[in-house]
C-alpha cells in the first residue's frame, strides 16, 4: 500500500512538473518577426517622401482607393506620360490623350489634383519610388517601440492553468497529509512505540513567550498587522489601478480601423488629427474629413455591390445620399467614445509635444497603426508623464526659444559649482532633460 502511495505521489509530481515546463516554454516563445524594409535609392526615398506628403490621401500602392493602385504603374505607362499626368492631368486630358481620358472615366470621373508645384525631377523621383517599391513583408512598429503583445496564448488560458496548478498543489498537500497519517498508523499497527521527544531549546523559548503573552493582545496585534497589510494593498491598488484605464478599448459606433488607415494605407496621422500640431487637442476629425475619401471609397467590391455598412454610417451621419450625391437636412453627429480620459485638472498640450518636442504619436499611443480597435496603450498616470520628462532631451541648440538657456549652459560649462555644468554628457555634448528645465513643476500642467 505504501509503495502504491509513493508511486501515486511521483505521478502527481511529474504532472505538475510537465505543466510548469509547458508554461515556461510558452513564456519564452518569441514573436514579432520584424521585417527589414526594402532599401531604396536616394531618389526613391525622396520620391517616397513626396508620395506620402501628396498622394496617400487618394492612392495606395497595393489597393485601389479613390485613385487606382499604383503598384506596377510604371510598367503600364511610360515615365513621360506619368510625369505629364501627375503634374497636370487636366491638360493631358484636354489634349485628347486617350489613356488619360480612359483613366479618368475608370475612376468615376473624380478629377485628380494638379501638382504643378512639383518639379519634373520631383515627379520623376516619385516614379522611381513606384519602380523600387516592394510590398512590405510585415508592418514594422514605428520608432523602435516594443513589439505588440503576442497573442499566442490568451490571458484566460493562463488563468485556467494557474488555477489548475493551485488545485493540484492543494491535492498534493492533502495527499501528503494522508500519507503521513497512514504512515503513523502503520507504525502503530507494527507496534513501534512512539517516542516522546525532549522539547528543544526553541520549543522551550516559544512556550516561555506563550506564557508571557496576553492572548487578546496577541490576537489584536495579528489583526492589526493583517489590517495594515490589507490597507497597504488597498493603497497600492488605489495608486496603480483606480482611474487607470490602460488597455481600455471600447467598441466605437463605427468600426473604424487604424490598422487599415494608418497601417496599410499609411495615411499620415495628421491628415485626420489635423490639429495635433496647432492645438491642445489632437481632435477627432470632423466627418467631412472622412468624406474627402469616402465619397469615392465605398468598398462595393467587398460587399456584393453594396456600400460597406461602416461607410454607410458616415453617410448616415452626414445625411448623404450616395446615389444622387446630395446632402439632406437631417445630419446626426457621431458620438465616439473617448478613450484617453485625462482628469480635468491636467492640461496636456498635443502641439507642444508633437510640434514643439517632436514626440511621435506612437510614443504615447503605442503601435496605433496595428490596432484594429484602438486601446489606451499608456497608463496616463502622472508617474508615466514624469518618467518621459526625465528621459527625453531638450534640443536647446536648434530652437531659438532656448537661446538664453543654451548660452548660459555653454558659459557655465567649466564652472563646476554651477548647476549648469551638470548638463553635459561625458563627451561634452549638451544633455538637458525637460525635467531639469522645470518640466516637473506643478503649474506646468496643473492650473
Amino acid at each position, binding site marked *: 500500500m505504501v509503495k502504491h502511495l509513493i508511486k501515486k505521489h511521483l505521478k502527481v509530481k511529474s504532472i505538475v512538473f510537465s505543466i510548469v515546463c509547458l508554461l515556461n516554454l510558452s513564456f519564452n516563445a518569441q514573436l514579432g518577426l520584424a521585417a527589414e524594409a526594402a532599401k531604396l535609392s536616394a531618389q526613391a526615398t525622396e520620391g517616397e517622401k513626396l508620395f506620402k506628403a501628396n498622394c496617400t490621401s487618394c492612392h495606395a500602392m497595393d489597393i485601389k482607393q479613390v485613385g487606382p493602385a499604383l503598384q506596377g504603374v510604371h510598367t503600364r505607362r511610360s515615365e513621360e506620360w506619368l510625369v505629364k499626368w501627375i503634374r497636370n492631368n487636366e491638360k493631358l486630358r484636354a489634349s485628347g490623350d486617350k489613356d488619360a481620358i480612359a483613366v479618368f472615366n475608370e475612376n468615376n470621373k473624380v478629377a485628380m489634383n494638379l501638382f504643378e508645384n512639383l518639379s519634373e525631377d520631383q515627379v520623376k523621383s516619385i516614379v522611381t519610388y513606384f519602380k523600387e517599391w516592394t510590398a512590405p513583408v510585415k508592418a514594422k512598429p514605428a520608432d523602435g517601440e516594443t513589439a505588440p503583445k503576442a497573442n499566442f496564448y490568451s490571458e484566460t488560458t493562463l488563468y485556467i492553468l494557474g488555477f489548475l496548478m493551485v488545485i493540484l498543489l492543494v491535492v498534493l498537500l492533502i495527499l501528503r497529509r494522508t500519507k503521513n497519517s497512514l504512515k503513523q498508523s502503520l507504525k502503530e499497527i507494527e507496534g513501534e512505540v512512539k517516542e516522546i521527544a525532549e522539547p528543544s531549546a526553541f520549543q522551550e523559548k516559544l512556550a516561555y513567550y506563550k506564557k508571557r503573552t496576553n492572548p487578546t493582545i496577541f490576537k489584536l496585534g495579528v489583526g492589526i498587522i493583517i489590517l495594515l497589510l490589507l490597507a497597504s494593498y488597498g493603497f497600492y491598488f*488605489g495608486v496603480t489601478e*483606480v482611474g487607470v*484605464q490602460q488597455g481600455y478599448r*471600447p467598441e466605437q459606433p463605427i468600426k473604424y480601423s487604424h490598422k487599415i488607415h494608418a497601417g496599410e494605407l499609411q495615411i499620415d496621422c495628421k491628415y485626420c488629427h489635423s*490639429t495635433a500640431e*496647432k*492645438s*491642445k*487637442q489632437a*481632435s*477627432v*476629425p*470632423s*466627418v*467631412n*474629413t472622412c468624406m474627402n475619401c469616402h465619397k469615392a471609397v465605398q468598398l462595393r467590391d467587398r460587399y456584393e455591390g453594396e456600400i460597406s455598412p461602416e461607410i454607410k454610417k458616415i453617410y448616415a*451621419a*452626414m*445625411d448623404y445620399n450616395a446615389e444622387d450625391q446630395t*446632402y*439632406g*437636412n437631417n*445630419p446626426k*453627429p*457621431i*458620438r*465616439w*467614445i*473617448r478613450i484617453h*480620459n485625462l*482628469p*480635468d*485638472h491636467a*492640461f496636456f*498640450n498635443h*502641439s*507642444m509635444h508633437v*510640434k*514643439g*518636442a517632436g514626440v511621435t504619436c506612437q510614443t504615447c499611443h503605442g503601435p496605433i497603426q496595428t490596432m484594429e480597435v484602438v486601446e489606451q496603450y499608456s497608463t496616463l498616470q502622472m508617474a508615466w508623464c514624469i518618467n518621459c520628462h526625465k528621459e527625453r532631451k531638450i534640443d536647446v541648440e*536648434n*530652437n*531659438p*526659444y*532656448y537661446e*538664453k*538657456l543654451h548660452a*548660459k*549652459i555653454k558659459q557655465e560649462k567649466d564652472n563646476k559649482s*554651477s*548647476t*549648469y555644468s551638470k548638463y553635459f554628457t561625458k563627451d561634452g555634448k549638451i544633455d538637458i532633460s525637460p525635467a531639469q*528645465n*522645470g518640466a516637473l*513643476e*506643478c*503649474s*506646468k500642467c*496643473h*492650473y
Partner: protein
Amino acid sequence: MAKKQLYWKGEEELLRSKEFLASQKNEFNEALPLDEVFSENDLGLNSNRRDFLKFFGFSVAAVSLAACNKAPVRNIVPYLVKPEEITPGVANYYNSTCGACSSACGVTVKTREGRPIKVDGNVNSPISGGGLCATGQASILSLYDTERLDGPKKVNGSNLESTDWASLDTAVTAQLNAIQIAGGKVAIVSGTIHSPSTLAVINDFKTKYTNTTHITYDAMGYSGILMANKASFGDDKGFIPSYNFDKANVVVSFGADFLGTWISPVEYTKAWSAKRKVDGISADGKVLKTIIFESNLSLTGTNADYRFPMKTSQEAVYIVALYNNLATLAGVAQLPMTKTGELAGGAIKQTAESLWKEKGASMVISGSNDPKIQSVVNGINLLLNNYGTTIDLENHSNQYKGFDADFIQFSNELNSGVYQGVIFMNSNPVYTSPLSEKISAGLKKAKLSVSFAGTADETAMHCQYIAPDNHYLESWNDAEPKAGLFQLTQPTISEVFDTRQAQTSLLTWAGLAAKPANDPFEHKGIYSQKLSASVYYMYIKSKWAAILEDASDEAFNTALHDGGNFDKYKKKPSSVPAFAIALNSLVADLEKTVGKKEEIDLVLYQNISVKDGSLSNNPWLQETPDPMSKVTWDNYISLPKALAESKDIKNGDMVNITLGAISMKGMPVFVQPGQSNGTIGVAVGYGRQGKVGEKGVFDAIGKNAYPFLTLQNGTYSTVTNGVKIEKIAGAYELAQTQTHHSIEGRDIVRETTLGEIKTNPKAGNDAAAPHLYTLWETKDYKKDGAPNHHWAMAIDLNACTGCGSCVVSCSIENNVPVVGRAEVRRRREMHWMRIDRYFTFENVNNTDYTKELFLSRDFEGKNVTKETGLAALDKLESAKKGAEYTYWENVKVVHQPMMCQHCGQAPCETVCPVLATTHSSEGLNQMTYNRCIGTKYCANNCPYKVRRFNWFRYNDNDRFDFHFNNDLGKMVINPDVTVRTRGVMEKCSMCVQSIQGAKTKAKREKRTLADGEIKTACQRSCPANAIVFGDVNDENSEVRKLFKNERSYRVLEELNTMTAVKYLVKVRDTEKQA
C-alpha cells in the same frame, strides 16, 4: 524724508471698536459652530457607539461601492463640417463693439469653439484704447442668463404666453396699420442710438408709418449739457463735446465722476492716466492736476489732487463764484448773483488762479444736469479759451443724446391718447423714470405696446408683446460714438434663444425685411445656418459702402476685422465757437436752484459696477465691491460722520428717507468718510422688480432710488435739497469686504507729491532698506538665476484709479465663483484680486487727525496685540470726542490692487504639509488644487492675505444660484482653467494658462518670446495701463525697467518675501496745501 503718512481702511479700524479688535485677532470672522455640531439636540441624533458603527459601516460600504464604479463613459462629438476658422482648443478673437452702455467701447471678443468667453478692450479703438470697465467685462454673462426670454411673448397680466414670430408680426403689423388709419401716433422710445444703420432702419420705419416719432430717453442722461450747448452755441450744437483730457493740464470737476461713470469713463481714464505720467519729469513738467468739488466720495474724488467737499445744491453758487473769480482775472463783468459763497480756505479763488495759469490747457466740467449751470460752465471754459483745445465741439460725442423734455412730453401725450402705439427699444422707463406710474398707466390706454427687452423687465411687463432682441454678442450692428468714428458689432455666437434683432423686427413690420437675393447666410443642405440677423447684416453692409466710400466686400471685411474705420478716422480741426447766450439772464433761474444750507441734500449717483441698473441681474457686477465703501450686493444711504453722530446713527442701522411724497424705507446706512456734511448719497440701479427677480437671489437687491430724480430747470436733477432722514428700529449688515483684513499701521501704500518727486525721484520711497534675513537656504535656481524667465508684475499706484475692472476681468478669466451676499459677510469672497482702499485725513486746521485718532502712539513700531489695542481704546474713549467733523469729509484715498505677490521666498510654501503650494523656476508661486487638503495654514501665514479658501462647490450648488450652477451659465467658463472644487485653497496664478500658452506657441514656432506677448487678464482690462506684466530676465522688457524705477517698492519688504510684484509710488500734484 517726508513725514510718514498714516492710513486706515475703515472707520472701525480708525476708531478701533472693541468688536473690531476682537474679531481681527480671530482666525474666523464668526465663532465656529462647534457647539451646534456637538450638541445632540440640534442634530436630533442620539449619537452613541452603535450609531457610530452604523455610520462607519455605511461609509465604508459607500466608499467601496463608489470605488467599484468604473469611470463613466465619455463621448467625443466632432463637428460634422468643421467651420474653417475653428481649431478645437484654440481661441478665436473678433473685434466688435461693447453694448453694455452707449459709450460704445471697441472690444475684442474671445471665443472658444463658437462661444464667447471673454470681452476685452480693442487696443486700436480710439474709445477704449484696450481697456474696458467692469460693466463691459461682465456684460458677457448676461448673454448666458437663464432669465433671458426664450422667444417672443405675449404679456397677459403678470403671465407670459409664448407665441411665435409670425403671429407676433401679424398682430403688430395689423395694429400699426390700424393706428395709422385712425390717425394715432406711434412712438419708438429708445436709449441713445448712435448706430447709423439703426437710425436708418427707424427712418425706414417712419417712411412706412409716417405717424412715428423717435424719442430718445436716457435713464441717467445728459440733457443739461445738450441743452446748454444748444443755447450757447446754436441749435446745431446740441450734443456732448469731446473732452480731451490728454491736452489739459488742469481739470476742475463739479461732481462729474469722469473716471467712474460720467459719459465715457474708459476713454477718459485712458487719457487721464496718460497725462499723469511722472517718470523722468522735468522741473517745469506738468501732470494733469485734478480738482474736484463734490458731495459723495466718487472714484474721481479719490483720485483727485484736491478734493473739496461741497453741498451739491449750492453748486450754482460755487460755479458762479468761480466764474466771477475768473472774470476778475480776465477783466470782464461778473455775474450779478446775490447768493455768493466761498469754500473753506478760499478753495474757489485758488482754483480760479490755477485755471487761469493754464488758460487754454484746462477744463471745467460739471456733473449737473441743469442746463443753466452747464451754460455757466460753458462760459467759464470760454473765458479760459478751452474750446478748440481741451473741449472739442467739431469732433463731438454721440454717446448720449436724450432730452428729458422729449420724454416728459411723450409721457403726457401717451396719457392724453396722442400716442396709441409704443415700441420700447433698450429702454426701461417704468423702472428708471420718476414718471414710472404715469407711463404704466398710459401703456394701458395704448392700442399697441411692444418691448424689445431681452428679459421680462418692468416696462416689458406693462406692454402687450415682448419681441426679445438679441444680446449684443449675437448681433450685427454699427455705432458712431464720435462724429466720424464708425464701429461695427458682429455676432460671435448664433442666437442662444429664439430671439430676433430689434432692427430686423422693425424692418419686418415695415415690410422691408425681404430676404436678400445673395444672402451669405443661406446655404444649402447641411450648411444651412440661419441668422435672423442676416437681413440687418445686408442692410448694414449697404450703409457701410457709403461710410467707407468703397462698396467692395474687401473694404467692409477689413473694417469688420478691425472693428471699425479706425485707420480712416481723422479728427476735424477744432475751433472756438461763438457764444450766443447772455449769462446774466440765467442768474434768476440759478438762484432758484440753490438749496437751503441747513437742509439735507440727497445726491443720487451710479456706482461703477451696476451703473444704471440695466445689468443688475449680473452676479459679477453685484459682487464687485464699490471702490469707496467696499460694499457689495446692496445700495445704501451714504452718511457723513457729522450727520451720523448728530442723529446717533451707526453703521448697520436702518433709516427711512423721505422727500415729500417720495420715500425709501428701511435703507441700511453706511457712514462714508469723505461724504460732505449736510448731504447723503444713494446709488441708483438697485431695487429691480418685475419678472427679473422671481427666481430668488436677484429679487429686489437694494431699493430703487430713481423716484428721487426731480425736475429742475426742465431736466431731471440727481440732487434734491430738503430730504428728511429718520432712524428706525432694526439692523442690517452690509456685505463689505474692506474690514476683512487690518492694516496694523504698516507701511503698505506710499505716496509723495509732484514737487518732491521732481527734485528727488526716490521721494516717498526712501525708507531705509530693512535688514533682511532668512531661515531658508537659497534654492538652486535662485543661486544661478532663472535662465529662461522670471515672471513679474509692476503696478503703478499713480495710474490706478481703483475702478475694479481688473477684479471682474480676473474672475472671468480664472473661473472665480460668485459667492453671494451671505458669504461675503462671512469674509468668504473668492476674488483672486482685490483693490485695497486706504484712507487718510487731509490736514485741516493744521491738525493731523489721522494721528490724533489712529492710536499710532501705542502701535508704531511695536507689536500689536489684542491687549495693547484694547488698552489704547480705553484711552481714546477718555480722550475728547471730536466736536466738529470737518476732517471726516476731507479724506484722501489711495487704491492698491492686491493679489498673490508670488514671493520669491514664500511664507505659504514653507507651511504647507502636503506641498500643494510650491515655487516654479520661473518665479511663480504655484497652487496645485488636486494636492491641497485644505488645512488653510498657507492663508494664515500669508502676509498679504490673498489666499482664498473654496468653501463650497459653487458650480454645482443650488444655494449659489449665480449662473455658475446651470448649463447655460457654465458656457462662460474658461476651458483653460480648472474649475476648483470645495475644500481647496486658490489664489492668483499670474494667468499661468496664458504664460504656458504663449511659451508653447514660441517653442512651436522656434522663436524667443517677445515682451508684451503675454498679458494677464487684469493688465488687459486696465483702462489706465497701471499694470505691466513681463519677464524681468529679459533686459529690454517693460517690467524690468519699472522694477528699476526709483518709485518702485515691494509691499512689506522687511519680511524678505522677495515678491515678484512691485508697486510704484503714488504722486499727487499738491505742492501747495489748499
